[in-house]
């Protein structure tokens, strides 16, 4: 019994291959949970030790830029889900359109992030580089009216840059994967019987979204004393 070309030689049929690939991607996502988890764990322990400084750090971040970015990423997730749905129906044209839009939103996220980093630099929040305990807002005020940043806020900013930085790297990788899939779709490699790569790329994309769903409140929203 000959197998279709898209079934690899170690598998008996497409179902076994699909099941294996999907399970493989979920296992990989578990590893990513622990990979990012180290950052969340460290962040938490440092927050326990310097609650004041970290609250200050949250306040200094641009809540609305982060909020818009969250909405952008959630929207890209929606279009990714639509792409997977269209792939399951074999509608290659729609798949290409949805993948395009998803990628566009992903790139938008990265662009907004870059803009935000530039704003952080302007506010003199970069640790070791240009961190200043006096914010630009306070610079014009007399010393009695200033609210200086605690030294440990640098540690907060370290976590902010590392966590969002690793997240951005994963987004970049995701954008790369989506572009590859887009090209493969345009070349007609997928069908209703064989579209598993799009599904598992979708899993990866949603996962990166979930990481941001936790990053955003953890970094930007914990502002209460």
């Amino acid at each position, binding site marked *: 019994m000959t197998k279709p070309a898209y079934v690899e030689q*170690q598998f008996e049929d497409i179902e076994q291959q699909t099941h294996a690939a999907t399970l493989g991607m979920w296992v990989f996502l578990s590893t990513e949970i622990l990979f990012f988890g180290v950052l969340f764990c460290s962040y938490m322990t440092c927050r326990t*030790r310097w609650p004041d400084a970290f609250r200050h750090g949250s306040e200094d971040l641009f809540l609305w830029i982060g909020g818009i970015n969250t909405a952008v990423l959630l929207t890209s997730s929606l279009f990714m889900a639509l792409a997977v749905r269209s792939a399951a129906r074999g509608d290659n044209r729609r798949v290409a359109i949805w993948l395009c839009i998803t990628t566009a939103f992903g790139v938008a996220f990265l662009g907004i992030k870059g803009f935000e980093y530039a704003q952080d630099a302007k506010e003199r929040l970069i640790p070791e580089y240009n961190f200043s305990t006096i914010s630009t807002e306070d610079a014009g005020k007399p010393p009695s009216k200033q609210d200086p940043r605690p030294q440990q806020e*640098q540690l907060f900013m*370290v976590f902010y840059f590392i966590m969002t930085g690793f997240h951005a790297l994963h987004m970049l990788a995701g954008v790369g994967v989506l572009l590859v899939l887009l090209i493969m779709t345009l070349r007609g490699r997928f069908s209703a019987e064989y579209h598993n790569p799009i599904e598992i790329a979708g899993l990866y994309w949603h996962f990166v979204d979930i990481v941001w769903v936790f990053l955003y409140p953890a970094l930007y929203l914990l502002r209460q004393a």
Partner: protein
Amino acid sequence: MTTATFIPAARRVKELNFLNHDYSIHSWLMTKDHKRIAILYMVSITFFFIIGGVAAMLIRLELISPTNWLVASETYNKLFTMHGVIMVWFFLIPSIPAVLGNFLMPLMLGARDVAFPKLNMASWYLYVIGGVFTLVALLWGGVDTGWTFYTPLSSTFSNTHVVMVVVGVFIVGFSTIFTGLNFIVTTHSMRCPGMTWFRMPLFVWGIYATSVIQVLATPVLAMTLALVAIERIWRVGIFDPALGGDPLLFQHLFWFYSHPAVYIMILPGMAVESELITCFSRKEPFGYIFIAFSSVAIAILGFLVWAHHMFVAGISVYSGLVFSMLSMIVAVPSAIKVFNWTATLYKGSISLQTPMLYALGFIGLFTMGGLTGVMLATLGLDVHVHDTYFVIAHFHYIMVGGMVMTYMGGLHFWWPKITGRMYNEWWGKMSALTIFLGFNLTFFPQFILGYLGMPRRYPAYPPEFQFYNVLSSAGASILAVGYILPLVYLLLSLRYGKKAGKNPYRATGLEWTTTSPPPEHNFHSIPVITHEPYAYHLELREPPEEQPSD
């Protein structure tokens, strides 16, 4: 899938197998065949074992005298660091899973290959690339932080090539993750018809449990080392108290990986042990289900005990109490396994061939290592012997006396299957005994040394410790001979060894139903399993197929 090339008259028929169907370098370096990848790993880890072994010899040579007679202290630091880094990440962790696991898992499960053969290949390349980074760091002057990379030495103060070694370990970590991922998916989705979970060999259970640990623990190491590298390059202060960081945070994160890592190292050894004990007692394992579930229990419980490495580091005493209690609990599944192997031996038909010698040595040495582990888990005792040679002896009993013995045992047991040749049995037995003697002479005195108070990682020591140190170094030289011998006779067997049949040890298991060496795609047709594993009671009635050479 074997084809016969017909040559007229009295010439032999050449059977194609995974080794001889293509001899080109390209077919080896671009292979997706799990059996060839296993051999690639075998060669690579032997290479690193030799380097790590040379470092060990230099260490033991230095320790013959109480003064710094051979190397300066800074060099000594680099020696034990590289010994640890290479032995842990480039030898022990890949050894059984990447070599024997890669070779045997698909065969034992009745599959044609692992689930993701290209990822398997990528794993080997990642291993090599990581190894290159580490070797370059070694040649460029080494690293002196200890294999544990404690901060703030590694992140702030060390003047050696920490970042390069850390990058190497980061990369080889992903090799481990992908191998584990591959085995997990293979076990779940590629078992042949009739192969239920409880009909799988115990080797598969052990490798599966190892893979779960690999997949869940190694990412933590990867990120932790990344943070060390970031701190080193940009001086950011996560682990630096002066900038608000906590050096103990590194230790928590590091040991969260590294304690499960020691289970990554020993579980495959236990997996092999189950196969060896059953075959050479001609008996099914006592308590198959208990051994299988103990593997899984060790994998899970192993994640809950990491701070027992930090009892004197500055964690709160309440935390220490919690981890001490959890560490006692994790000894239980290991003990269950030892009891079950011993019970398997009871009333079995024991034959003392080379793999069995290694297996028996394992039971004794692993038990000693494990018991001393429970001693170390006791808070009060650990305060006295932490960072002494007692700890070193403990983990070498498990790693060398346990893991390396079963690696050697497994290598000998499956050598005929992998290469199609039998090795010289007399030399095999001699090496096993040499290793056992050399090992005990090397490491038993270290228990005494540690208890008497000799600290680890010191090249110079008080003269009253010299006697035991000399004993230990003498043992090390015997141990070295014991490891060199197999290198010689196993290689010679490739040319001069007697050709092996399908099943020279009359063992059960699907891998023994294929030719030796197996064909490229493992099975002509996928087998269907209808009976329980380890059916040794059935085998006794059949005439022996072939006697192993003596």
